[in-house]
């Protein structure tokens, strides 16, 4: 019997998956014998200990648990851990440089005062990171749309958008001949 303490719920899961789940997270391999219904967000927090992944609503409304899977932002509460096998998963911890320096987005969030209580920040940064990996120089509308799935309960949205915009405009967009 495996007991998972999640929020205030005590979940009991008697049936374990036979094979371990193996996930590539921030370039590191993690494996665990776990239940089939374990979500990626649970795996990231409980198995991998990556508590930069926050969970809020557990139903894809708040975006706090956003991570990158194969460079695309997704809600890690809405993927089962075993579905992410073989994919490249990046959490907020994975954005740090090898020498511990903050990524341009992380630094911009500090510089622009885009962090208040901080709970939405990892998801917010990863949603923005996913946008910038797809569209290096997005306009305001694209930034707002990309962050629409992330809710800041401190309502500090304007500084968040400014922070993302500052990184977007730093990116040199090559002129297509």
């Amino acid at each position, binding site marked *: 019997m495996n007991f998972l303490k999640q929020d205030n719920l005590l979940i009991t899961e008697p049936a374990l998956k036979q094979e371990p789940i193996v996930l590539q997270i921030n370039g590191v391999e993690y494996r665990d014998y776990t239940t*089939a219904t374990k979500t990626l967000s649970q795996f990231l927090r409980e198995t991998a200990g990556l508590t930069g992944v926050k969970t809020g609503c557990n139903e894809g409304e708040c975006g706090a648990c956003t991570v990158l899977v194969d460079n695309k932002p*997704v809600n890690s509460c809405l993927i089962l851990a075993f579905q992410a096998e073989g994919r490249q998963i990046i959490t907020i911890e994975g954005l740090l440089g090898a020498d511990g320096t903050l990524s341009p987005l992380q630094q911009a969030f500090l510089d622009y005062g885009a962090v208040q209580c901080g709970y939405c920040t990892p998801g917010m940064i990863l949603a923005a990171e996913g946008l910038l990996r797809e569209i290096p120089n997005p306009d305001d509308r694209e930034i707002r749309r990309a962050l629409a*799935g992330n809710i800041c309960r401190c309502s500090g949205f304007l500084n968040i958008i400014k922070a993302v915009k500052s990184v977007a405009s730093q990116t040199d967009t090559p002129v297509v001949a």
Partner: protein
Amino acid sequence: MTGIARTASPETIGETSAIVAGFTGSIAYIAGGTDLIIALEQGFRPDMIVDISRMEALNFVEINFKHVRIGAATPVSALTKLNELHKGIAALSQAAEQFGSAQIRNRATLGGNIASAKPAGDLLPVLMCLDCHIEVLCRDGSTKKLALDEVVTDSGTTSLDNGDLITAINLPLQLGDNPISAFGKIGRRRELTIARLNLTVLADYQTETSLARDIRIVAGAIGPVPLRLKCVEQELRGRKVDQTFADDFLGALTGAVDAAIPGRYSQTYKRQAVMGLGLDVLQSLFGREFSLPACLRGMT
């Protein structure tokens, strides 16, 4: 308490058939998981979860002059640009564009939207309006093709048997010579919103004469399943598209809402709101401005 005994991650249709054919327990297919995982959190416990998100055979868009075929596990984010390929399916792109959040669009799939059969599912009215056929692989390996209203029978209910897998959605695009379509929705906010009301219109439009030679109209979030508004269609079919056309269209929409939800608390709101929605969809469909009917002018 029953736990989940098994998971499977097949990569081909053949592997999937082999896995499910020999399995006697209940099966839940998972692709994006944006609905299924919430059901699991609420205690839903199938005997086996089959992940179909790795199957390339379910993730594709095929398009030619009068036919679009889309793999059931194609993510919604891959549908947002389809209007550039064929204006007959612009409605599907517009619905995909307004679907959930970026995170949800990267995971949620067309097949999943059908299987969940939610009354406010934004893609369902579009699929009904575009007269889709849904390809299904049965557990015994046989296949069947069904219309949307044959699959989605009630709120959250489909006619599919356990183990049936939606594999592809066919959109014939055979409404006349020049099919054009548009989608609009009203929610409580602009992004990541559940539709209070949505509307899809498909027309065979003769540009030179401004004639709507044929028209199909489907409303969503106004009943347990998408509702085709045949009475509105009848009033407009074969007519010249002008302000009178728009007035009659919006008036008929209000009548359709009154008929669909008489006495519901939301009737008072939706019978008015549907006119604003109808105006947006008309403008998007025909690419020009129309006015609100006289009774509403000055209210905005």
